[in-house]
């Protein structure tokens, strides 16, 4: 995984928020489609709940992976911010730290999006 430390791209920064956005979309669209086509799908609401639960776990795993890579990129926190020197090393560490914080935010957000899954009893009639 040495290449991760070398990478000079912004995409790693957006991984966790992208996963959060996709998870949000999947949860809401899946429930909306399921409830609109209730009769047409041979699937109970419980199955739906477990399915989305599985997707949530997967999303959290990707975010944790992103956080771990970011932590690594940040040098495991050996140096404290601000990484504001005009060097490649500081740029990498800054990006790593920012990614780590974004991953934390996304983790919490995915958890918050999941809360209704525990309380929704059925589709709105």
């Amino acid at each position, binding site marked *: 995984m040495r290449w991760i430390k070398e990478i000079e791209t912004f995409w790693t920064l957006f991984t966790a928020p992208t996963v959060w956005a996709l998870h949000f979309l999947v949860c809401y669209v899946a429930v909306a489609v399921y409830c609109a086509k209730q009769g047409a799908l041979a699937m109970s609401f419980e199955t739906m709940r477990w399915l989305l639960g599985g997707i949530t776990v997967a999303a959290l795993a990707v975010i944790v992976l992103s956080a771990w890579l970011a932590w690594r990129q940040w040098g495991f926190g050996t140096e404290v911010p601000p990484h504001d020197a005009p060097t490649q090393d500081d740029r990498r560490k800054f990006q790593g730290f920012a990614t780590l914080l974004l991953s*934390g935010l996304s983790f919490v957000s995915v958890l*918050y999006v999941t*809360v209704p899954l525990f309380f929704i*009893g059925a*589709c709105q*009639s």
Partner: protein
Amino acid sequence: MVVGGAIIWALVVGLLLYAGHARREPITARKASWLILGGGVAFPVIVLFCLLAYAVWLMPQIRPFMPALMDNKPQIEATGEQFWWRLRYLDDGGNTAFETANELRLPVGERTTFRLKAADVIHSFWIPSLGGKMDMIPGRDNVLSLEPTKTGVYRAPCAEFCGTSHALMAFSVIVMERPDFDAWRQSRIEAAAMPQPAHPGRDLFFRHGCAACHTIAGTPAIGRIGPDLTRIGERQTIAAGTLANTKDNIARFIREPDAIKPGVEMPAFGMLPDGDIEAIAAWLGGLK
């Protein structure tokens, strides 16, 4: 809520005093980062999570659209009209047991489910002391349930701008003990079979065509356009929460409804002889 608010207020003021009076000693960087992590990240995340979970858990009870909660069938159908409230009490079969207007009576300590409708434009049904508001939308049935916990009289204004007299569209809610409520409900159901005794105002009411729009149980008046006036004398207010329920005010409303409620559908009957108006008002005010 008040206790929670008081605790938070005391904490904030306490912190303020502490910050003002504590000796200024720098804390270590390690301690500072734990403070930021704990107070700035962990604490709000946990508190917000708990509040969110509590709010989401509460939601189905306030908005009973889930099939599991639909067992409590609507007991009252409320329709918003410009600018008054048509209130139908439903029987177990979902049919209208009786209709009334602008004054709601509810049993205390029990959850009552409402079906909300609108006849013309969007209105909003709101009894602030009992719960949140919900829109009444033409062509759509919304369901709301409320559980009053204290007896008393509450005011409920229309909470969605609906026209010139929007601010003059309210109803009163009387929360009663269950036996009183049952007695009232039963007497209202029986009112249809109890003929109203003769009265000069009664004859004038029919002669001047009031019955074309208004219903009064126990008389041949079965108009459906305007508010049901059965036992209007027992209501707290007239003209949908606009005027105190006195005979003078009833007479005034018959004479110039549009001066009291701009945009009202009811035509003015100021051309009638004063004596006739007084007699009708006296009869209506005495219907209890």
